[in-house]
């Protein structure tokens, strides 16, 4: 009698993550098409419209890349924290607190040099993100409280604080219908470099290489991997695993906070609920789908940015924007399924 058995492959193809992503994306497009067909929409027309409106012109391409900035930065933050085998589900909150920190510093300080002013505000965003993850980091390192739940819950807390600020102390009296804080002055707007493309994208490129270096080339990156691996190895190597985990979390949170600062200084120009539209959650997909590789996060983040722009513009023809979310999530599910075939082998064996 023949029987099928599962074997773990000795070697896994180096490009398996890339292939899984590619096939996952195709699966997701098929799922998206089915949903569109159910809604009586032509998938080819819809997707080609999405493509044209997201990358078809300099303007739309730069909007797409602008949209990618928070996805990439938050994704990089998640990947750094994952080096110590911890999860950051709180990027959404960190983005908001980054923006809040920027506004707080903007209101309370005076600078004559605009470039220096912007630099200080970007730094404030980074620190804001770190502060946001401080409680989950302390409770994880000191008491061992599950960081997945605490980082997630901080999202709701920070969002509540944002709503409080823009309806209370920071409420702009000129903004009647839509609660928001007052606009920041034009002198601190991030400049554009090409079309509508924000200077933030250059920061994004810089931080991608920074994260790549930190994770893969630096001593700290090596120590993080050891700290995230076996406890005994870390002890033998004389590495303070808790300290590494703590620092990794603060840096990772800072990346997401920086995303919030860039969003405020280049897109919304004020604190409102529009600072993030679920970027922190999409960033989790971006980071996971690339196997936490910074360069991959940059590429997939750019693609998903375009997908989000495409998703938001097809609203005009009556297609729900959630189609973009569904395609992004399905891509990861598809990739996970394909990844199985790269790591395992199904063999037929003779039964005795």
């Amino acid at each position, binding site marked *: 009698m023949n029987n099928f*058995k*599962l*074997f*773990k492959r000795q070697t896994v193809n180096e490009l398996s993550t890339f292939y899984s992503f590619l096939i996952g994306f195709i699966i997701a497009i098929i799922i998206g098409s089915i*949903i569109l067909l159910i809604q009586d929409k032509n998938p080819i027309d819809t997707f080609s419209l999405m493509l044209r409106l997201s990358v078809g012109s300099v303007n739309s391409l730069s909007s797409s890349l602008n949209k990618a900035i928070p996805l990439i930065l938050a994704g990089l933050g998640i990947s750094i924290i994952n080096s110590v085998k911890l*999860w950051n*589900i709180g990027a959404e909150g960190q983005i908001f607190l980054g923006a809040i920190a920027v506004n707080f510093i903007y209101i309370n300080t005076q600078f004559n040099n605009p470039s220096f002013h912007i630099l200080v505000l970007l730094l404030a965003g980074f620190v804001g993100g770190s502060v946001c993850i401080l*409680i989950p980091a302390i*409770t994880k390192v000191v*008491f*061992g*409280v*599950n960081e*997945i*739940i*605490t980082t*997630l*819950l*901080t999202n*709701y*807390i920070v969002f*509540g*604080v944002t*709503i*409080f600020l823009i*309806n*209370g102390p920071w409420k702009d009296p000129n903004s009647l219908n839509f609660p928001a804080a007052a606009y920041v002055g034009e002198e601190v707007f991030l400049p554009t470099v090409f079309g509508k493309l924000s200077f933030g994208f250059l920061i994004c490129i810089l931080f991608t290489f920074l994260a790549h270096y930190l994770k893969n080339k630096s001593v700290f990156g090596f120590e993080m991997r050891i700290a995230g691996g076996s406890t005994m190895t870390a002890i033998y190597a004389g590495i303070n695993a808790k300290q590494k985990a703590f620092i990794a979390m603060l840096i990772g949170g800072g990346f997401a906070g920086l995303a919030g600062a860039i969003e405020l200084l280049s897109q919304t120009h004020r604190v409102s609920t529009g600072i993030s539209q679920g970027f922190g*959650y*999409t960033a*989790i*997909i971006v980071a*996971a789908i690339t196997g936490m590789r910074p360069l991959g996060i940059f590429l997939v983040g750019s693609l998903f940015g375009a997908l989000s722009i495409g998703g938001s513009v097809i609203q005009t023809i009556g297609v*729900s924007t*959630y*189609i973009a*979310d*569904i395609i*992004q*999530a*399905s891509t*990861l*599910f598809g990739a*996970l*399924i394909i*990844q*199985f075939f790269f*790591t*395992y082998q199904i063999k037929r064996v003779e039964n005795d």
Partner: protein
Amino acid sequence: MIDIQLIGLLNATLQAATLLFIAALGELITEKSGILNLGVEGMISVGAVTGFMTAINTENIFLAVLVGVLSSSIFASIHALVTVVLKQDQTVSGLILTILGLALSSLLGKNYVGRKLVTKLESVSSITEPSNIIEVLISQNIIFYLAVVLMISTSFVLKRTMFGRRLEAVGEDSKSSDSMGLKVAKTQFIATCVGGAFAGLSGVYLTLSYVPYWTDNMTSGRGWIALALVIFGGWKPYRTALGALLFGFLEALVPRLQTYGFELSPYIVKITPYVITILVLVILTIYKGGKTGAPRNIGVPFFRENR
């Protein structure tokens, strides 16, 4: 006056607790088998919207509950497929289940936002304004009593039946269970789908009675609080129920604080349950010194080494 307020508080506590408890109990069963499903939020949402849609279209409340429960269960089977059959990372899969569930339910419910239900899940007794504790207890929604039944039967099944013992064995040590001849994958698959069904029941309770209407993201983190409740309850049904009552009480108390003379911003009031959840988790972890009662194999994919 105080009495009526207290009665109202008790009533609201029980309702909020029911919602949290059913989802938490489902997750407890899933986690007992060694599978961590972070998709509770998404599963509740899917159950909530499919149940609501069925109720609007058919006006048949039992069918609505059934559809909600089944669709959440089927939705959970994606997680089972990816983690149990294909042995992929449970954290990633669960998280994406939440994101997918929220997006999918927003897409499905687009044309149902703001619509009014003709038939709701009703209370079983005819008492509309309970005046004492007994009357509160006997005038609850049918789902409340169902939750009590589920609590007792789950505890019984886990402790006293072969299925429950197998489930626990698989969650504690899947390798030994496998060599003893237990079907690890099958057990985990079923447990994940049962967890989804419970989340779906919690979801239909949300849209067919607790709120009752449909808007985007109306689960507002309850799935995550349910996950925290499992840890709080040390993976035990009765203790999880106790936790649900505590959190239900907080959810019910917070909007009432103003009537008791506390001056608080409603926006700050809204975040208190989340702050308290974190505090409770911290206190609990310190108190138990790391011995949380978690199944030993949780989150570890089972793979039989073939030679």
